């Protein structure tokens, strides 16, 4: 690597950030993004940086790379890498460090690879620049790295363009690229956020192994506490531009000493949380805007332990926690707070009673025909089997969760149900009406208003040029609610009350709302016509954890009040476990498991459910989890494997005699109490399965 680098003592930190402050400069004002941030990463150590969006964690990462763009500037503090101050380096010195000693892995693998360059060239470039390696040697190294990140057929991959690989494969390539010249420090910025959970589990495994193999230090940025626990040794929690707590993983997770850390943990659905007996506790209030931060403690206005006159009197410094090593908290009252006090019992609810069947699907299929290519070839069409023999019932007041990874057909199912597509085959009974072949424009207003949808991305689903109130009134007009404009206006205000938004919001434009508020508007719109069945397609996955809790609670509240049937589509098993009554697991268009939440989350499992459960990172140090990492990618729905759809990745396949997994589609069979599993495994083997989670004895 760089020969002129001074000798560096390995007992010193690789990366030492001291009182770093970063600001962005706009024409109007200076916006401080990070204030007084300090942290240290030792050799071989993995430091996790967690916080909600906008807290400044990515800014810290880019500052280490000295890539803050034209507006960003480091206004104070030092960043020392192997003892050399990065903030004082010239562009040329930085260029030598970037990619060779500090490498970065990004959130969106597709966007961070050059679409017009072959993978091999992109990889080989790194040692060619930094070690002046000849091209043939660099390519050989690239091939080895591709094999190291466990990609099949490295030669083919080197000659491929990025778009020819799946998301998981692309991320492996980005990792390989970062490791090409064996950097001392690896910065990972939400490396798995764009990936499915089972793919994420594979990537996390890989990162852990490679870091151990090469002795690389890591700065791991994530909003997912569970993931940080799996990867990191130490953690720094950030809130509104400041580090609020830092320490070893076990110290921070088990003996947190900052109210924000505590609030964060209480707003994520850990096993044990339950929508009736132990509801989630959302953090009250909103994240302060960078130029509207309060005086004193930034978290003060949202803190349960806030004391006027002390918390807002002066800037709060980081204070060491006595008894722990390198555990600091930015709270002046942490010694006075009783951290072991049980959570103030929230409002408990009676579990709502489940009524009649309102929706029933029978052997619903949806196939798409796609032309191979409309431009250069013609003739042959391929069939995408998006949904295969989907059968289930949903009852009044029930929450049915539909779980699966991307490409499993859950969104197609929602489209068919909504009438945006018509089913190829089978029956859908909504109340007492057959709707499987009625597209939405031919459905009557009643059917449309009683079956509504809450969409995944609240940012794109509101019309940006119409006020919030107007959008809801518009929905009311379409659903034929109310006799006059005044009546509809009144109803709109009531709907805002229902979703707990202030009535003044009626006159606001969507851009003036935060993500969580927009999603509330989306919910209000869905319930405008007294919807009986609501499909919620990943309603909280685009939101921050503390907001997720609030929106989830809101949905539950409305459901209890209106006795709505909620079809909750999600890939997040923690939240599914928390709020659903029954769970349906889908894989490649098939229902592979269906049962009550308790049945699905306890053995016997379908092998896919087992892998899915094991892939979910859980932010609780007491829970031990079996690690099952699925090999390969989800097969394409255009060309599904013969026999059982899951057979290509199933670890139980050898336990089925006669290899029928590869030839015969297993039947959906009852394993007791209405719990259905689509698997060839014998009853004994299913019964002998061990649970994925075990709570370690305290």
């Amino acid at each position, binding site marked *: 690597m760089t020969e002129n680098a001074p000798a560096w003592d390995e007992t010193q930190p690789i990366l030492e950030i001291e009182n770093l402050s970063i600001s962005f400069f706009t024409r109007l004002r200076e916006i401080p993004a990070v204030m007084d941030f300090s942290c240290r990463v030792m050799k071989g150590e993995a430091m996790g940086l967690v916080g909600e969006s906008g807290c400044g964690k990515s800014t810290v990462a880019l500052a280490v790379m000295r890539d803050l763009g034209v507006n960003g500037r480091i206004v104070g503090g030092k960043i020392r890498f192997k003892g050399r101050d990065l903030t004082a380096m010239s562009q040329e010195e930085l260029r030598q460090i970037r*990619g060779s000693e500090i490498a970065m892995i990004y959130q969106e693998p597709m966007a961070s690879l*050059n679409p*017009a360059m072959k993978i091999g060239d992109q990889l080989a470039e790194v040692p060619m*620049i*930094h070690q002046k390696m000849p091209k043939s040697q660099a390519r050989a190294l690239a091939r080895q790295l591709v094999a190291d990140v466990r990609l099949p057929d490295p030669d083919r991959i080197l000659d491929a363009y990025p778009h020819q690989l799946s998301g998981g494969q692309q991320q492996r390539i980005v990792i390989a690229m970062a490791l090409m010249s064996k950097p001392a420090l690896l910065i990972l910025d939400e490396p798995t956020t764009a990936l499915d959970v089972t793919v994420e589990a594979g990537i996390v495994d890989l990162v852990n192994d490679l870091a151990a193999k090469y002795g690389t230090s890591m700065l791991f940025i994530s909003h997912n506490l569970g993931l940080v626990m799996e990867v990191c040794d130490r953690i720094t929690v950030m809130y509104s531009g400041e580090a609020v707590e830092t320490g070893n993983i076990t110290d921070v997770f088990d003996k947190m000493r900052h109210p924000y850390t505590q609030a964060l943990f209480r707003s994520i659905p850990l096993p044990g949380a339950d929508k009736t007996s132990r509801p989630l506790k959302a953090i009250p209030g909103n994240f302060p805007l960078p130029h509207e931060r309060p005086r004193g403690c930034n978290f003060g206005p949202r803190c349960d332990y806030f004391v006027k006159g002390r918390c807002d009197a002066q800037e709060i410094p980081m204070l060491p926690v006595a008894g722990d090593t390198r555990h600091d908290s930015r709270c002046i009252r942490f010694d006075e707070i009783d951290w072991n006090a049980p959570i103030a019992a929230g409002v408990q609810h009676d579990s709502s009673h489940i009524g009649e069947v309102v929706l029933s699907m029978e052997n619903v299929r949806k196939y798409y025909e796609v032309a191979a290519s409309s431009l*250069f070839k013609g003739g042959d069409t391929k069939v995408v089997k998006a949904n295969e023999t989907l059968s289930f019932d949903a009852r009044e007041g029930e929450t049915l969760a539909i779980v699966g990874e991307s490409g499993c057909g859950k969104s197609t199912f929602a489209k068919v149900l909504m009438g945006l597509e018509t089913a190829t085959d089978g029956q859908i009974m909504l109340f007492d009406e057959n709707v499987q072949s009625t597209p939405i424009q031919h459905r009557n207003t009643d059917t449309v208003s009683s079956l509504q949808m809450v969409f995944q991305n609240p940012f794109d689903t509101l019309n940006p040029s119409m006020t919030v109130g107007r959008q809801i009134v518009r929905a009311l007009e379409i659903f034929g609610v109310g006799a006059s404009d005044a009546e509809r206006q009144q109803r709109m205000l009531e709907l805002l009350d229902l979703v707990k938004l202030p009535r003044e919001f009626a006159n606001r434009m969507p851009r003036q709302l935060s993500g969580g508020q927009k999603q509330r508007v989306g919910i209000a719109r869905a319930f405008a016509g007294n919807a009986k069945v609501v499909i919620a397609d990943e309603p909280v996955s685009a939101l921050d954890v503390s907001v997720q809790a609030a929106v989830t609670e809101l949905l539950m509240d409305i459901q209890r009040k209106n006795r709505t049937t909620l079809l909750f589509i999600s890939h997040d098993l923690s939240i599914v476990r928390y709020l659903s009554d029954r769970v349906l697991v889908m894989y490649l268009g098939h229902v592979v498991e269906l049962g009550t939440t308790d049945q699905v989350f306890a053995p016997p499992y379908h092998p896919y459910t087992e892998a899915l459960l094991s892939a979910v990172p859980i932010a609780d140090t007491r829970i031990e989890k079996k690690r099952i990492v699925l090999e390969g990618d989800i097969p394409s729905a255009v060309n599904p494997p013969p026999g059982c759809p899951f057979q290509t990745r199933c670890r139980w396949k050898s336990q089925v005699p006669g290899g029928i997994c590869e030839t015969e589609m297993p039947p959906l069979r009852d394993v007791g109490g209405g719990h259905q599993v689509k698997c060839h495994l014998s009853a004994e083997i299913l019964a002998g399965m061990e649970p994925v989670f075990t709570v370690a004895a305290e």
Partner: protein
Amino acid sequence: MLLFLFRRIGLMLVTALCLTIIVFALTNMPAKLETLAKTQAGSRMTDAEVDRWLERNGYASPMLVRYGEWLGVLPGWVRTEDNGTVTGRCVALRGTAEAAGERCGILQGDWGFSTRFRAGVAEVLTARLGATGLLMLWVLAVMVPMALIVGILAGMREGSRTDRALSTFAIASTATPEYVSGVLLIALLASSTVGLSPLLVSWGWIDGPVLFQGNARSALDDITFSNFTLPVLTIALYGMGYVARITRASMTEVMTQQYIRTARLKGVSFGKIVVRHALRNALIAPFTVIMLQIPWLLNGVVISEVLFSYPGFGWTLYEAAINNDIELLLASSVVAVVVVLVTQLISDVGYVYLNPRIRIS
């Protein structure tokens, strides 16, 4: 791929058919025919004489019939004079009455007769298109590299001083039409009384009276720096600004992409980022525009060829239009359609090459 080609050619035929019908209808309006008769047979003809001339030269039959004759789906008109000589469309085209077949139109390979140049249309057009092709070649050779360089230099650092200077230049050049820049260039460089030339002569730097020639007719025999620079520059400047703007927009967008950040944080130097990572991605949009630019340049060719009296396709088109040379105009429309669609085809195929994402496995 083959089917795609067939579809494109089909589209070309339909477009050509529609366009020629329109041109035919416009050039065959009674007033236009009268002009034609008067330019061909003397401007002092009476109305009766005009009618007789039209009758004798086959312009009296209904318009659709004559369009059919031009296409070659209907037999050409034949007329026996009082003195026994046979005249007719095909006779005129093929010399003698014996050699003339029944039909003689596009389908038979006969492009007709140019009334302005008194020669076969095919003959006139091939010579003129050759001349214009040469001009276009030089225009593209000057315009494309210049536009891409200006666009890329401006776009690689958005908002920098280079960007502002080059963008101003590009906007100014594309906002100046050929008839303005051409006249300016002639005044500045090709006049023996004003501009640079007298100055240079007085300093003894050049031998001739002017630096560049304002008349490009001599380029037909021998292209020289002196007689060809001004027409090429006039057309190239106009097109260049536009392509440079598109390249700059495309380049600035590419430079903000995440894969450019990846390259930067890999330690790639700025020059290599631009050449290896940004260039190919940034060329996708301008490539299509350059290809669209070629038929669009035909417009520019008309003005500058007339301005510099260069007898190419544009000059011919202009002459044909003011003399209502029906068959030459029709053939020119067909040529225009072919040029547009062939460049489109090249642009589609080239696009697939530049952008691997739409390549079909």
